[in-house]
């Protein structure tokens, strides 16, 4: 019974979301958004069901349902739900809902994918829909949308090229370890393919030096779109990286590790150092989100199971932190509060939002007992346990640098110049409260999540 629910239910949900998006275009937008929310809730339930029952099977040669993918399915469905709540005041709900459905189904496709081709299609689906989503909402957004569109198109072609390169060694296109022909071990062709994969995914994941588009796009897009970009799109790219480099290139982890190390270090420094000089909070958070991508990459560079756990933990942690933070930034931006200077006195103007924002920022900076700290702790300890002490030290230095700009915002909020009170609408309060609750509870008692993650990682790698 449960097996058939999972077996037919999950593809059905995804299919409905793809077609449903089109069906509801321009028709009673809010209701269709609510319907999308319902489907996401069903997806959460299915994911939990599949995780608990511990199935592991492949469907149609493109879906793989196991502990890992079902855990991520529910997680991303929750993240998408939060974004959907943030988007409730969207001006063009029908259009938004259609694009949102496409992105959501693309995300589920990536998470569940068992084939390089379906992975590619899903990433293409996401990036096309994302470019349209950024475009929506005014002429001044044309520039970031075109930027993203061009870059992601190039990225997809690079991805296709990389797939073509490994095709001779893996005709099935399955996300399964490459057949290691003795003559091919460490061959330059494989290395080139791996490098191209990194380039293709680095664009979406925001890794140095393929992240120049990011700050403009994040700042230019509407608040909830930014939350979606940073909370879902980027994390999906990381899941794709995990699939490709820990499953397909499983035999080459050792050789690829220094490359990831280098990219991690450069990404962290780039994000943090540029964030230090930003005056606009949204742009600052965009750069901070780049630096967080660098931290996540530490675990991938380490390449052990512990490193994977740590990366996944940080992916989840940063998703909640970033959705909460961008939600607040979006709401404040709609009231004309954008720069660090404008944030003065936020603690007085709205106590709950002020404290929540401060805690979210502190969590990003890695201060215990918040969730961001546990993620960084796992990352740095995975690095040290594999002997990458310099990498851990650089990570710690970076998380110290980040204090400068997070602290600047928090101190500015503590200013006591009298200004009028601000009343937040319930959507922002709800999303902030959920994110805050997650980072506090998991930060104080992380063991359950760590167990779930290591169990799910066991199921695939």
């Amino acid at each position, binding site marked *: 019974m449960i097996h058939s629910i999972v077996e037919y239910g999950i593809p059905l949900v995804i299919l409905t979301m793809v077609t449903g998006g089109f069906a509801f275009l321009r028709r009673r937008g809010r209701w269709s958004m609510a319907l999308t929310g319902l489907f996401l809730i069903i997806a959460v339930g299915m994911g939990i069901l599949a995780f608990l029952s511990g199935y592991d099977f492949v469907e149609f040669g493109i879906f793989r349902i196991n502990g890992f993918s079902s855990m991520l399915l529910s997680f991303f469905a929750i993240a998408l739900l939060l974004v959907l709540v943030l988007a409730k005041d969207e001006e063009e709900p029908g259009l938004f809902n259609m694009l949102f459905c496409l992105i959501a189904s693309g995300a589920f496709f990536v998470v569940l994918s068992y084939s390089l081709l379906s992975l590619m299609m899903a990433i293409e689906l996401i990036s096309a829909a994302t470019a349209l989503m950024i475009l929506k909402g005014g002429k001044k957004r044309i520039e970031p949308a075109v930027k993203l569109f061009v870059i992601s198109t190039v990225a997809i072609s690079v991805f296709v090229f990389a797939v073509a390169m490994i095709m001779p060694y893996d005709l099935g296109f399955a996300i399964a370890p490459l057949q290691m022909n003795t003559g091919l071990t460490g061959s330059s062709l494989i290395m080139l393919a791996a490098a191209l994969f990194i380039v293709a995914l680095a664009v979406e994941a925001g890794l140095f030096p393929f992240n120049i588009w990011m700050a403009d796009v994040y700042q230019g897009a509407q608040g909830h779109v930014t939350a979606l970009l940073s909370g879902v799109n980027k994390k999906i790219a990381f899941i794709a990286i995990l699939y490709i480099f820990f499953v397909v290139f499983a035999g080459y982890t050792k050789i690829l590790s220094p490359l990831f190390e280098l990219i991690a270090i450069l990404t962290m420094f780039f994000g943090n150092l540029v964030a230090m000089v930003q005056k606009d909070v949204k742009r600052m958070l965009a750069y901070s989100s780049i630096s967080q991508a660098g931290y996540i990459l530490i675990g991938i560079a380490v390449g052990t199971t512990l490193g994977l756990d740590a990366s996944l933990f940080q992916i989840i942690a940063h998703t909640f932190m970033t959705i909460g933070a961008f939600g607040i930034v979006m709401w404040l931006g709609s009231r004309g509060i954008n720069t660090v200077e404008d944030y003065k006195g936020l603690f007085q103007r709205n106590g709950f939002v002020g404290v929540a924002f401060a805690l979210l920022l502190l969590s990003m900076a890695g201060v*215990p007992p918040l969730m961001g700290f546990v993620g960084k702790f796992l990352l*740095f300890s995975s690095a040290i346990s594999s002997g990458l002490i310099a990498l851990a030290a650089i990570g710690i230095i970076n998380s110290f640098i980040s204090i*400068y700009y997070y602290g600047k915002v928090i*101190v500015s909020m503590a200013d006591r110049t009298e200004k009028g009170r601000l009343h937040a609408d319930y959507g922002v309060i709800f999303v902030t409260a959920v994110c805050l609750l997650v980072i506090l509870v998991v930060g104080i008692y*992380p*063991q359950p999540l760590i167990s779930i993650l290591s169990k799910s990682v066991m199921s695939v790698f």
Partner: protein
Amino acid sequence: MIFFVAIMLALFAGILAVILLDKRFARGAAALFASVALAIIIIMFFYYLTGRMVGYSESIPYISTFGISLQFYANEFSVPLSLLAGIVGLAAIIGGNPLQERAKASNSLILLFELAAIGLFASGNLFLFFIFWDVGIIAVFFMISCLGEGNNLNSAKVYLFYSLLASALLLFGILMIYFYTPIRSFNISTIEAGAQTIPLGVQEVIFVSLLIAFMIKMPVFPFHSWMQGAYSDASTQGSMLIGGVLSKFGAYGILLIFLMLPIARTYAPYILIIAIVSAFYAAFNGIRKDDLKRMAAFTSMAESAIILTGVTALGAFGLDGAMYGMVAFGLGISLMFLSIGSVEFMYGSKHLSTLRGIVKGAASTAYSFLFGVFAATGVPITAAFIADLLIFTGADKSFGVLGVVPLFSIIIVGAYLYYAINKSFFDTENSIEIVRYETGHWNPSYALLIFSILALGIVPALILGFR
């Protein structure tokens, strides 16, 4: 018996009560729960004194992947230091915020800080130590940035920057210890047993990073720049807790390094020299200060240097002395800050150049300040006397005459403090008028602190009985 868990639950319940109840009940609720916590600490204290808690520990599984559990030890360090945190916290809640401005924030932050302090002093593993360390730092950060006055935002920035530099170094050191001890463990006693096997080069790296982290927090000479601003711009309660308890985080940390890492002992003479420099630096810097809070801040820094002397001396005398010093100086300095805060509240100024004849308008505050100065300079029958005696006996044993040098910094500190008292507090000829007549509840706090100082000064066995 679950003493530490009970204390923390009481404090946590206090935080919830302060946040959830109406503003009017904030101080009452906070004082109630802090008193409950203090009562449990005192019960534990007497259990310990009577020798019924040898080897007592509490352990709750926490992150089993890393073998981390919530471990709290009752030992000769954790019990007295918890007592210090409990007393200072309660005194700050009762007397520190006369008008109860931002009552919810101030009271809940004190309780949070107290929770962090007790957790840190009692924690049996370095992971918990780190977590409570950062919680304490952040609580104090908000006391400076949100509740402070004057140039508080800038001070808060500097404070946060230094403190998180310390915690970054601390995290690095802790992770290095964890992965280089033979049985990977955060447990302090396990590390003590297995630290000899850590390679010397790695030990040096760990030692330096931890030492700098703790020196920032104490604060000791080259890393003290955050101190003046943080002490003087924090709220009165914030200053009490920074001077009385937060600076002891660092002192306790250095004590832990000396207990854990064998290599620390070979560097003891160098650290003694840092302590000497720091003591005289603080003493000479205090002379020029017009701001009473800054003066007290430098007094606290000189005392930190003296505690550091005791720690480096090691041996029974040195460690006992350092232990006693932390409690005694902590109580004394928080009494000083509390009375300075009251003076500032009543007279609207904390500057020596304007204050005259305070004893006429506010006798209890003036005499409390005087008593705080006694406690800081180690006048007999105050607790600090015993601490100085033990520390310098120990230092003389370990280092010879050089060890006794920091003692002379106390004379300088005493000289300017008594000068300040003479001029501003007891010169009744041309006394200035009180600006604000509302009374705070500071008298009970004075009484609590003075009583503790006298009790520990007259009956040293209260703390030395632990050995």
